[in-house]
């Protein structure tokens, strides 16, 4: 673990209208680490990711990414600093083909602060990571299955050559085979040197990929530790994760 975390969130709060959703969250993601935000539906996981990305108008607190305060930046500026975002509802451009969707995400290559080159992606390289997509470069986004869209949304984010990816519920609503593939992909990305912050309800999926876990309930962090610690802590699992 390097000294300065890739992503450091301090007392992050967020509101929808008058309703407060997040309460002073503090957490960090180190370089090369896969961290899971876990909790039930409505715990505030997606809101946390959106707030980091600048997609929630009413928010407080600080978000440091790669040593820089990004909490006052616009979403496109945050993306351009190497923070990738894949939303839970995928938000594929349905009127655009697979190749066109990838092109929208395209950004120049990047380096880490220590000068090392960050993984850089081309459609060809992504097609080896997601062989299904390679078979349909000209298919319209709206004509793809949920699993294919899920892969496309991750691939589209990777086209921006991010240093860290916010991955919102990658296992939700897709077939078991795809879930497994998605887990392999995350492990693959970690090997490439990417950091990942994912939101997840499914402990079986989280177990396959995560190093550490923060458990959310009603917009507050109630527990944090390593994945191995969570695995043996039945109390936390029962209190915050089982349905």
């Amino acid at each position, binding site marked *: 673990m390097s000294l300065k975390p890739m992503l450091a969130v301090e007392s992050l709060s967020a509101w929808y209208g008058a309703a407060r959703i997040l309460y002073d969250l503090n957490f960090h993601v180190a370089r090369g680490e896969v961290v899971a935000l876990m909790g039930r539906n409505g715990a505030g996981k997606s809101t946390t990711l959106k707030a980091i990305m600048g997609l929630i108008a009413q928010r407080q607190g600080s978000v440091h990414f790669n040593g820089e305060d990004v909490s006052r930046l616009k979403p496109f500026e945050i993306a351009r600093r190497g923070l990738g975002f894949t939303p839970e509802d995928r938000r594929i*451009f349905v*009127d655009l083909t697979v190749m*066109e969707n990838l092109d929208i995400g395209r950004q120049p290559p990047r380096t880490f602060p220590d000068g090392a080159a960050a993984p850089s992606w081309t459609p060809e390289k992504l097609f080896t990571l997601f062989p299904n997509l390679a078979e349909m470069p000209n298919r319209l986004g709206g004509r793809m299955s949920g699993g294919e869209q899920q892969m496309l949304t991750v691939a589209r984010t990777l086209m921006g050559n991010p240093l860290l990816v916010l991955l919102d519920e990658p296992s939700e609503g897709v077939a078991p085979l795809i879930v497994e593939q998605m887990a392999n992909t995350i492990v693959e990305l970690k090997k490439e040197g990417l950091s990942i912050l994912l939101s997840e309800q499914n402990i079986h999926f989280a177990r396959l990929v995560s190093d550490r876990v923060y458990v959310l309930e009603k917009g507050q962090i109630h527990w944090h530790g390593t994945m191995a610690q969570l695995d043996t802590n039945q109390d936390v699992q029962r209190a915050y994760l089982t349905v």
Partner: protein
Amino acid sequence: MTLSAFLFQALNGLASASGLFFIAVGLSLIFGVTRIINIAHGSLYMLGTYIAYSFATRIGGGLGFWGGIVATALIVCVLGALIEILLLRRIYRAPELFQLLATFALVLVINDATLWLWGSEDLLGPRAPGLRGAVEIFGRQLPSYDLFLIVIGPAVLLVLHFALAKTRFGRLVRAATQDREMVGALGVNQAILFTSVFALGAALAGLGGALQVAREPATLATDLIAIGDAFVVVVVGGMGSITGAYLAAVIIAEVKALCIAIGVVDFGFITVNFSKLTLVAEFLVMAGVLIARPYGLLGRPQGAVRSVAEAEDPIRPAAPGLKALAVAVLALLMGLPLLAQASPYLLVLGIDVLIAVIFATSLHFIMGPGGMHSFGHAAYFGLGAYGAALMVKWLAVPMGLGLVAAPLIALAGALLFGWFAVRLSGVYLAMLTLAFAQIVWAAMFQWEGFTGGSNGVIGVWPPPPFNSAAVYYLLTLAIAVIAVLLLRRFLFAPFGYAMRAGRDSPLRAEAIGIDVKRVHWLAFAIAGGICGIAGGLFAFAKGSISPETIHVGRSIDGLVMVLLGGIQTLTGPIVGASVFATLQDTVMRQTEYWRALLGLIILLLVLAFPQGIVGAVAQIFGRRRSP
């Protein structure tokens, strides 16, 4: 009517279609990406004709004409970029109604700027150098320039189509049309994208206007006529589809050309002059398309464009203090005739204000609690006013009967138009209502034999004792009070709750058994009927009615009144109407450039007081909502 004459008119139609296409396609592209309906798009088109005229006459020759057309497109392009950067960028997060109003304010400002720069005379440009001749087609002379126009429309369509399909800019435009927030989250600077799309749309409008310079004179009326036509084209073709825009432009232009070609036809029992029915024909085409395909010929269903603004607080019955204040104001108003001994003008102003109050509260009824942003409320004012005036003129009915007929006629019109309007929402509804209002206006304007055309109907004076300003004022006051109380009663009845439920969540409202479309349709009709009363009172107050008084400007006046007062409360439209009507009768009469003044007031309002007067006062008195 021979076949060759028919085909010849069809070619004429194709030439007009190009102009329509240029303006509609820009409107459609801009809406797709920025979600702003740029009502000032017709003004940019108009400016195009004026600027090209100046190039063609000042510089002259081939360079002045053809070079001028290119230069015009560039100038309007830059102007569009400036408008986006200086104004629209500040209001992307405002409620969509404010965005519409802001672009309408631009219409007013640009119109007066054009008047100031070029004067009020129509200006006919020179014929196109190199294309002055004519080609013989179907035994008639078709100007070569028309042939050029016929070709350039599809040519630009092809270029645009290619640009959207094959370039990164085109991909970004298509992606942003679907989900602009996601495009931003992927690292695309929306501000630059928005500015460039707006500039492109403006350039197309400027080009379209410039190309008309050799065909039609530049006139100050072009802006609203062009935007009305463009709305119809966009609605028929489908929002966001450029091919649809061309297809619809051709259909609309052909239908118009056909009407002109048919001319006067004697059916034996009735003689119909089809060339005067162009606007009605346009309406029928649009109505037919909307029934068969609510999203236009090539459009696809889109999620309703909901504003990003916060949900409104529920409206509440007035507090006792406010009720007491209302009674006090009413008492004061009843005593006004006594004060008017000194200044008779006070009564005229009073009548104007009361009519404005009826007008604005009826509009607020569908806009606020109904969530239907009508941009054509003048239609029902006009139906009421003309209904009453024409009954007096042709049937010599007494005033009482005229005043009863006014709301009924307006109600009938609102039932007809509302049936279509409630099928749409948001900006689509706004455009459709505006188009309907244009049609009512055009009918009154074009149907000379019945309505008196541009002269209108005159000599509609009230009989004694109402010919005394004081008595007529009291009559107006009584009717205004009844109208406002009636609307209030509707709002706090189950009908009003159903209406608001349908506004806030159509799905949930239907799930608990509310027929949302029907409730909104009836609300639309009620508002139209009440508005008709205002029209009737207006006709008798002024003794006359002319098309000018029911033009789209009156619809916009209504919107300004409602927004000026604040849309969240019932007091809002009353206060807004009073302030606005007073301003209009006093300040704005002082200057020839009152449109620009009004436009600037609207812009100030939109940028500075998004909650209106009553909202701002309520905030000062601490009725703040939670942060």
